[in-house]
């Protein structure tokens, strides 16, 4: 299993559009990907769940990856977060 953490720098937090992009990025991989905070983790491939996290600016999120392409998924999501959030 791979784990990454990231602090959201986008002013609006993970709002509707980036939530959609995050889900799209996650869906491209076979691994099971979870995203969230210690209080609540959700499936990163499900947009309602990701939006429902209501992650705000400055909050730290954790992503866990488990599966055949976990290395590649972690690298891709890390890059997505840094460029978009």
């Amino acid at each position, binding site marked *: 299993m791979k784990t990454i953490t990231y*602090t959201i*720098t986008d*002013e*609006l*937090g993970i*709002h*509707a*559009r980036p*939530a*959609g992009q995050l*889900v*799209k990025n996650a869906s491209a991989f076979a691994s099971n990907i979870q995203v969230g905070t210690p209080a609540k983790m959700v*499936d990163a*491939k*499900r*947009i*309602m*769940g990701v*939006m*429902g996290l*209501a992650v*705000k*600016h*400055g*909050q*730290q999120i954790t992503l866990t990856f488990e599966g055949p392409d976990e290395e590649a998924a972690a690298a891709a999501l890390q890059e997505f977060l840094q460029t978009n959030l």
Partner: protein
Amino acid sequence: MIALRGKSVCVGVAIGQVFVYRKPDIDVSDTPAENPTDEWARFLAARQLADTQLAALYAKTLDTLGPQHAEIFDVHRMMLEDPDYTEAVQALITNDNKNAAWAVLQTGQQFAGVFAGLEDAYMKDRATDVLDISNRLVEILLGSQANIQLTSPAIIMAEDLTPSETVQIDKDKILAFVTRQGSANSHTAILARTMNIPSVVQVEVGIPLAALHGKTMVVNGFTGECFLDPDEATLAEMKNLQQQHKARRNALEKMRGLASTTKGGRFIHLYANIGSAEDLPRALAGDAEGIGLFRSEFLYLGRSTLPSEEEQFEAYKKVAEGMQGKKVIIRTMDIGADKQAAALHLEREENPALGYRALRICLDRPELFKTQLRAIYRASVYGNIAIMFPMVASLWEVQACKQAAKEAREELNAEGIPFGAVEIGIMIETPAAVMLADELAKEVEFFSVGTNDLTQYTLAIDRQNAKLDRFYNPHHPAILKMLQMVVDSAHRAGIWAGICGELAADTSLTETFLQMGFDELSVTPGKILELRSIVRESPLA
């Protein structure tokens, strides 16, 4: 005539017929499905059609309004496909034998409830998105889809408008939006501002909206008032206001790109106040000649941890780069008083306005201060950055700040990290700083007067207390006298002086500020063109 009150989300005046948009009657009954397997197939077919419709809306919006407004429909398409959502619908159909429309409606309400219950104001509004896709499905299932077809321009009135309803309307035919619900963050409001359509939300109407259909109405987007069946006098007054607004907008647009120079040749800088990097587009759209006040508090508010140097650096860099070499004055953290930050763990105070805030916290917690100063210096290679220290009352405080800035530079030097030349200035917002202006001017490179706090401290009036309104006079002679003292002290020492408080945008004083000799006014971005037009009319040499 009936006057209605609401909240303005986009200025302007509209006069015309009301078109009341009523969502199609969704009469969904809880009749059991005849055959759950067929019902599930009906749902899948409806979802397929909804997806096709959304794809078309996406393409249309992309074409007319651009990607940033279109993307929401892409999000809607993803929401339609969301397994949590569809599994909930499926469970109601197959396990509970519900009909598809009922299952969708229930599921939509359940998911919308989750969003509506969130604390985040932006996310609360996402409840509308869930209802939007659910209604679309229900309408398809019931075969009752609505379309807003306007034959002539009208004022659109509705309970609330979903994004797909808003963009469906031919925008050349929208005179104004008036909704009973909605907020400044709703899609309708955001779109209205992009398209410059006067809009009022949360309007208070005591009768069913349908009764208003076809009536003549005036929407005053400056005050949030709407007048139904306006009388002659109101109509004349509003027509006048509408024309003035149009004429002024046209005249102000001509100010774009011009120099802020008086007829006599005096030049003044007109800068913008911004509260976060997100405000940058507004500053650029307002034609700001620089950023006169970049409030850095946003980095500290609404969170439980302190912002890292990296995070601050990114925010400052973004604005410095965005302004392309124009000056960006970053005010160091001004937390305390009415702005509380959980991350700082401040104690409750009897008298927060006179308490532990801004510089006082920074000088007490050098590591916190150093982090911010390092971030600012690092960002300085990406543009023309200046630092401004708030809440100065004593000479030693300024010297201590300069010392901290020097240490930050020395650290960066030792680490081989580059930084540019950064002007250092202070805010003049305590009466003490005004009285010491001559001495303080020798220490720094500019002054910027924070008139909000200066007025509050000078008049001993808490601005939050509405009972004191009649005693609160922003044009108080004591304040004007202090402003003159500040600018005189600055010029005697050969440094520049500006104003960044609310008073700077007060157009009745622009001429006075020019006469006093101010070199800069920093105001909300939307005011810059207006101030420039006044400056350019002034004969002052």
